[in-house]
């Protein structure tokens, strides 16, 4: 039963972080906030496997973590301004 309260706390903090995604002055702020929300929902996925008592759901969390990292790398690759040090690859 304690797992449900932890899930609610994590979802509350994710909702609070979503304010920075809406407000953020620059693009980097939004990327940081989205990364934080992604890690929080990875933890929710791990805790849900305990709530439903099916340990097989942890595989989903592993694949989700890999996709999250590659997402951040792709977003950072193509967001540099071309007149400020963008190098032709």
């Amino acid at each position, binding site marked *: 039963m304690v797992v449900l309260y932890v899930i609610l706390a994590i979802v509350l903090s994710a909702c609070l972080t979503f304010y920075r995604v809406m407000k953020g002055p620059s693009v980097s702020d939004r990327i940081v906030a989205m990364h934080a929300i992604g890690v929080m929902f990875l933890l929710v996925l791990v805790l849900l496997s305990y709530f439903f008592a099916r340990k*097989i*759901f942890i*595989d*989903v969390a*592993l*694949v989700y973590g*890999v996709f999250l*990292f*590659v997402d951040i*790398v*792709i977003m*950072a*690759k*193509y967001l*540099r301004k*071309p007149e400020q040090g*963008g*190098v*032709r*690859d």
Partner: protein
Amino acid sequence: MVKKLYKLGLVVSLGMFLFVLFSDIHNLDRTSKNYLSEHYISEGVQETGAINLVTSVLYDYRAFDTLGEATVLLTAATILAFLVPVTKADMLGTTFTIIVYQATKYLIPFIAVLGVYVIMFGHLSPGGGFVGGVVMALIPILLSLTYGIDFSEYKLTPNTKKVVEDIGAIGFILLGLLAVLTGNNFLANGQAGFPLGNAGELISAGLIPYLNVMIGIKVGAGLAIIFNSLMKEQ
């Protein structure tokens, strides 16, 4: 202020409309037409040998649809490889620091083992050919993101990827034709008399693991071809 209230009211009324609509759809008479799903749920494990019911629907009962979906990917990869110009036209991008290179180097074996696991255990755990293929395709994508596209195409040449994708496409059809030889339908699994084994072991469920491997190879190679040829475009 009035405009904001107007927008808010519009959104709330749309939400209420959708709620009423979907609650009506959810409460349609649920006893009349679900004998097929009842059959899948109750008899699926005995008939196909796969614990994961989604896999048993995807690769046994409706395997012909899966062949069609995979053909879409093959067509897309082929047409992109034809249409995108062969001459090098580079994109604006950043060069990462040495820290990202090191991390990528140590992450690649982890991603490879994870992809092979997701493909091979497709009939026992969530996942399967499509998800495992995407995870395997992350290796050439990460290589061409960090080390540059030249290094990636030196390690895995485009001809190799095309050959691998063709092996996946042809192998799926050949495995389906194996059932015709025993006098059954195309892509039949349990009815054709393949050994199903004990449900829950690695080698079980007849043809389903081999079909998973073929789909995984095909999706991985196809996505790698699509990403590399789109990255070259200006």
